[in-house]
């Protein structure tokens, strides 16, 4: 099995707080990979370092065999990124954003425009293509960000919380595009804290908590004997058995 992404001893510290505490990970190529973990587990920090947007304190990352920090020319052309919490050039219209992004990547203008039209169509953004991105809803922003990430046909796609705050219709559209993309042999790495989503989409999972990888492997391996990924996850991160118990026993029903 060849790896799409290979991470060795990755570290990141913000002041006193260790965000990522030494990660080793081999992500298989051609799979739909989910990076799951609770809020603050270090998913965004990890993805930022893997994509070259944040400099690690230690460790190395290589994507399709090229080191992210020593060989950016090879890596940046092969990856697409949809970060979380970073803006887009929002004073451009959706179409202008794609035209800008594609041409910055050195694609010929006519090709960019052709691909942009198709992506806008498939992602259901054709009606809003001339509206400024600043006036887009959350779901539309995620979709235009995804379009910009796919425009240069990358080998590996990194998506940070692509379904966060997205309505069900847009989520289904995004899902459809991603499934078609991985079916062609490309790799998708996405982070999420919604287990049901990861369980239904991914064939390979890495579980993260407190800056470390707690488990990784195919969905079946990580799930093990547990009834669902949710159960397995709660056991892994040690949140199991924390029942509401007798607290809040006044809540709901009966006497006010």
């Amino acid at each position, binding site marked *: 099995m060849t790896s799409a992404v290979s991470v060795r001893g990755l570290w990141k510290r913000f002041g006193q707080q260790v965000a990522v505490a030494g990660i080793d990970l081999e992500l298989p190529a051609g799979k739909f990979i989910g990076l799951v973990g609770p809020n603050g587990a270090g998913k965004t920090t990890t993805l930022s370092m893997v994509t070259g*947007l944040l400099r690690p304190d230690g460790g190395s990352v290589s994507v399709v065999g090229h080191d992210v920090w020593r060989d*950016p020319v090879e890596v940046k052309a092969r990856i697409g990124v949809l970060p979380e919490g970073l803006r887009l050039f929002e004073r451009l219209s959706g179409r202008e954003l794609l035209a800008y992004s594609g*041409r910055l990547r050195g694609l010929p203008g006519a090709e960019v425009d052709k691909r942009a039209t198709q992506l806008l169509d498939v992602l259901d953004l054709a009606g809003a293509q001339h509206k400024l991105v600043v006036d887009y809803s959350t779901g539309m922003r995620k979709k235009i960000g995804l379009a910009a990430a796919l425009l240069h046909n990358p080998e590996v796609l990194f998506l940070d919380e692509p379904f966060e705050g997205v309505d069900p219709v847009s989520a289904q559209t995004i899902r459809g595009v991603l499934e078609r993309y991985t079916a062609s042999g490309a790799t998708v790495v996405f982070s999420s804290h919604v287990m049901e989503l990861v369980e239904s989409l991914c064939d390979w999972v890495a579980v993260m908590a407190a800056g470390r990888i707690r488990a990784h492997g195919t969905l079946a391996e990580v799930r093990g004997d547990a009834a669902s990924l949710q159960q397995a996850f709660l056991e892994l991160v040690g949140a199991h058995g924390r029942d509401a118990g007798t607290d809040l026993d006044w809540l709901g029903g009966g006497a006010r």
Partner: protein
Amino acid sequence: MSTDVAGVTGVVVRLKLSLLRNGLRQSGGRRAAYIASAIVVLLFAALQLLGLIMLRDNAHADTVVVILVAVLALGWAVMPLFFPGGDETLDPTRLVMLPLRPRPLVRALLAASLVGIGPLFTLCLFIGSVIAVAHGGLAYAVGVLAVVLALLVCVALARAVAAANIRLLTSRKGRDLAVLSGLVIAIGAQVVNFGAQRLGSSGLTQLDPAADVLRWVPPASAIGAVRSVSEGAYGIAVLQLALTTAALVALIAVWSRHLTRLMTSPDGSTLQAVAEAAVRERNSTGLARLLPAGRTGTVMERSLRYVWRDPKTKAAWVTSLAIGLIVPLFNALQGTGSIYFACFAAGMLGIQMYNQFGQDTSAFWMVAMTISSPRDAYVELRGRALALLLITLPYATLVTALTTALLGDWPKLPEALGLSFALLGAMLATGAWTSARFPYSIPQEGYKNVAPGQTGLAWISIFGGMIAAALLCAPVIALTIWLHVSEDGDAWTWLLLPAGAAYGAATTWLGLRLAAPRTAVRLPEILTAVSKG
């Protein structure tokens, strides 16, 4: 019914007081700022009250008073547009869930508006105005009525404007406008300053015709009535008072209508999205097709679009363009100018090259993802510099030519242009380098241009850069001086135009060359620095 109305009024006035008090309780800094501003305003109010009383019996007293009142009323009209968040009771949509009828609500909100430093200041000024122009018991009696009427007109004006614009103020376009409004004040201040200087030289008589008109415009007409009574023109006084009252009634009617509509229709912020669904197609302009292909043209196009579409960038550009024009031109007009002031335009516009990546905000990641070598970074920076030059070169040339024309000093045009171009080149070079070395965030909301904690960085970037730019220009400046002091050097000053231009171009090229590798290796650090706020 009347007790009910009094009840609502009391509640809303108390609400206003609580909001004021709670706002102050939030932080010590805010409390200190409020108290300090209150003291300053009250001192100022007392001083101008004193000044107006001393103005009594002055020949121009009524002119000054009428104009002051009119300007203050204008301030009341404009204020809610600039400071929409200033008064929460100003936003009646917050009261929308309460079962209130329009009439008591209008009365209550009007009463609440009278609470605060602003109304107190206005009251002081109006009282001073009446004292300045009133002669005789009857005039004072009319004065009391005039003050009350004028104050109510001001408050109703502010409320009516705010209610009419609340849909605008809660929409994205409105907030964009608010960012721009700060610079309207800045540029307006320059113009007022210039006007005041002219006035100082030619006296107050110039204002008399304006005052004659304003005497009939509410709320200044109320103060006009006081003077009319003092002069025995009772008919005119009654007319002026009637006019003021009519204005008050009309304003309240307008406000009340807007209020009813606001309270019974959906919130403007959600309405906007639907209304804007049918937007015109944004075609690439003719200019865009003239830009070079590849990354250079792409970067230039995006930069130029942002000058127009991004409120922060636009505000910065308009400020630079205006000040770059006003300073050399107004100085030349006043006869105190020098042709070298024309370099101000180049200097002001060159500042736009500073903190290039900060202007991108965290969207810089999109740029960072496509820069994988110093060459990419060089093309990126060069594209941004070219976009800037596309506006700056013709503009600096125009300003220099205009200044020269005003001073009539045509022989000095080539050297002034040469100096401008050299300065522009130095600013671009230092701007590119500091963009890579000292990037900082520009918050997108509000008036601030630096994120908290990065002020030092911004200062190093801008002032260090400007000093470096001035030093970089030293050879051209030295050459200029040398040509002027040497015996027949004046015949050769035309040489400064090509020399300055060439020097500027070379400095820019060198600056971009030095900045590019720094940008390429510091991409994650730059992204972190520009992503705050």
